[in-house]
């Protein structure tokens, strides 16, 4: 048992932290979000080519640094500290995760392009009726000659307006919630018949509703085997869930730190409000939630390679705890700031918005408590 980071991991954290401090202050972020595309593509290029950051979790054979889950967690935590609106989760964690899992020619072709910053992937999995059930899929991929034809509607696809590729879950067989008959495809985001309705999200990203209207896709777009894609999808979503928890550690650490700084300089009743014990204890409770989120994220990151049932229980335990912590820390930060906390003017409110979206991303606390119970608390 060992809980220390390697020198390389420390270096990744320090390098990224310095870069983001220079490029991702609150004003710069606000300008990116307000710009036409909602992001600054130069940042992604720099992450890829100047810092080598997008290769941190890929093997050396693919041109990466040879890392994995821990590197993803480190990077997501740093991105969370500046509430970065970069598509790292979608491209590297989800897209890269799927490609690493299936390997072969498609991985050899696409992973180096991810590392170079030329490929951006969006994960089109959610559907309006599906809530958090990954098998609840109406989108169909019908066999057509050598390839498939896609039809259906995917909702709230983060990063889709920026994407070069879409990672799509679709039914190649079975009824809407069947475990069997689910397949995973990596397709060209600009394929004919894809209709997008783009919009900003409340937490600063760009997303789309995506309608597939008889989209013809080639046979080699299929990742893994046809009809048995659910375990792979569950696995990459678990990896992404833990990555989002790591991001939440960064977001909530900043919510806590910002609240402390504010309470020290805000005077009421002739003294800084940080002197009031009721606020001190609230800030201690925030501290404890942040620390426990870090502990749970470490735990789940280290268990991502365990057999599916153990992995899922660990990930759900982590997300259930982190979701609740994100809510508590976010709400407490706003309450301690008072009126200024509910304006757009301070960064704190924007951290709160991201923390709030993290709560339900890949499943609410309730969803994950229930999955944990199903796996560990049989009658």
């Amino acid at each position, binding site marked *: *048992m060992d*809980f*220390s980071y390697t020198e390389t991991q420390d270096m990744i954290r320090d390098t990224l932290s310095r870069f983001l401090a220079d490029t991702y202050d609150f004003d710069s972020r606000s300008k990116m979000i307000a710009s036409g595309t909602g992001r600054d593509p130069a940042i992604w290029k720099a992450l890829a080519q100047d810092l080598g950051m997008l290769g941190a979790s890929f093997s050396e054979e693919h041109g990466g640094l040879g890392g994995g889950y821990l590197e993803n967690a480190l990077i997501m935590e740093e991105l969370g500290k500046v509430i970065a609106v970069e598509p790292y989760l979608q491209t590297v964690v989800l897209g890269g995760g799927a490609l690493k899992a299936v390997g072969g020619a498609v991985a050899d072709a696409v992973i180096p392009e991810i590392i170079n910053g030329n490929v951006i992937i969006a994960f089109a999995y959610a559907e309006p009726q599906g809530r958090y059930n990954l098998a609840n899929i109406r989108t169909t991929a019908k066999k057509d000659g050598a390839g498939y034809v896609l039809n259906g509607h995917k909702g709230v696809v983060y990063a889709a307006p920026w994407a070069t590729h879409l990672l799509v879950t679709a039914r190649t067989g079975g009824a809407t919630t069947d475990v069997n008959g689910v397949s995973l495809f990596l397709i060209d985001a600009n394929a004919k018949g894809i209709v997008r309705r783009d919009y900003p999200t409340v937490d600063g990203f760009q997303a789309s509703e995506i309608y597939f209207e008889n989209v013809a896709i080639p046979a080699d777009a299929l990742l893994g085997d046809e009809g048995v894609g659910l375990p792979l999808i569950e696995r990459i979503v678990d990896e992404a869930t833990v990555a989002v928890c790591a991001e939440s550690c960064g977001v909530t650490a900043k919510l806590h730190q910002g609240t402390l700084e504010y309470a020290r300089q805000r005077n009421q009743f002739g003294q800084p409000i*940080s002197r009031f014990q009721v606020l*001190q*204890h609230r800030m201690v409770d925030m501290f404890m939630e942040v620390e426990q989120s870090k*502990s749970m994220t470490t735990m789940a990151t280290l268990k991502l390679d365990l057999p599916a049932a153990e992995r899922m229980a660990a990930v759900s335990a982590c997300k259930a705890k982190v979701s609740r912590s994100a809510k508590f820390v976010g709400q407490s930060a706003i309450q301690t700031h008072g009126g200024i906390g509910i304006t757009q003017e301070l960064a704190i409110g924007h951290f709160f918005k991201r923390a709030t979206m993290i709560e339900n991303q890949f499943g609410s606390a309730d969803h994950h408590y229930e999955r944990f119970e199903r796996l560990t*608390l049989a009658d």
Partner: protein
Amino acid sequence: MQLEFSPAEIAFQKEVRTFIAENYPQNLRSVQDEGHDLSKEDFLSWHRILAKKGWIAPAWPVEYGGTGWTATERFIWSEELAAADCVGTMPFGLSMVGPVIYTFGTPEQKAKFLPGILSGDDWWCQGYSEPGAGSDLASLRTKAVRDGDHYVVNGQKTWTTMAQHADWGFFLVRTDPDAKAQEGISFLLIDMKSPGVTVRPIITLGGEHEVNEVWLEDVRVPVANRVYEENKGWTCAKFLLAHERTGIAAVARSKRGVEKIKAIARTEQDGDRPLIANPFFKRKISELEIDLTALEFTELRSLAGEAAGKGPGPESSLLKIKGSEIQQRITELALEAVGHYGAPYFRGFGEGDNEHPIGPDYAHRAAPTYFNTRKTTIYGGSNEIQRNIIAKMVLGI
């Protein structure tokens, strides 16, 4: 970073597990299973076995009798002890005064006191709280006046756990009445058989005799029994409190507690289903279990920090707060789980009494344990005081 134990750690785990299985006293096991209060001899029987083996003080430096185990090995050891449901060893000597003596004591004090702590020949108690000094410990008034090479001690201590069995006590006393609160306090080791020491029981809500009042009337204590400098006893007290908090998370024992609740909830019927199938009860168990995992990994991160040279710092208050809350939630759920049979008051078997007590075995001590465990958020610095410590020492507010 990795979670798996190394081959050496797995071998260690096997060694300690085998040792416990082969050496844990069987009669002690049955006393525990039937829900009796443990006697001094019950506690000491296991203590002496560990002392003989050289495993009684894993956290101590090797030169004073420690085992030299790594943080991971100590973690494995505590997990195995809890998994086998072993009684704990009394903390007052091993975790409290022992580390103070080997850190601050003179060579003579080390030679005189450490062997008795390790062997179990000396049973220790802690003389800190007073009727007027609880959370505000530094307002204590028990005073020690110098008289040649002795102090004459007068005052009253309270909540003195297991003082009824104690051979020795470590006491905070005021040696300079004019100094500010924390200054002017000294750390004295007092022979509990000294003339003028009176121990009176306090019976707590579960019916147990754990704590006592200790009255000190003109008790003569050799100056040689003062640890560290006169009026600098607060340094020892603070050191001791930080030490006390590290073990206080009680993760391994709480894991065992959660398992016991699950077993009860699988046995107890709730209508036409076992209690564990009740979604509300099930949710309380899962919340408890997940919070316990968060505590466990917080402790592991803290141990890793310790191994890297960062001693137990003020963040160990977090372990105390969360650990004590979880201990309470376990007893609360156990009492809820046993239903009707939480009510009968079981006082243990009388001499020669063969009649089975009322209700299932697991219910006998549910209520007394629940009542008793309210102490965990109060002792060792109440959880409110722990929050003050984090606010001041970690957050800097």
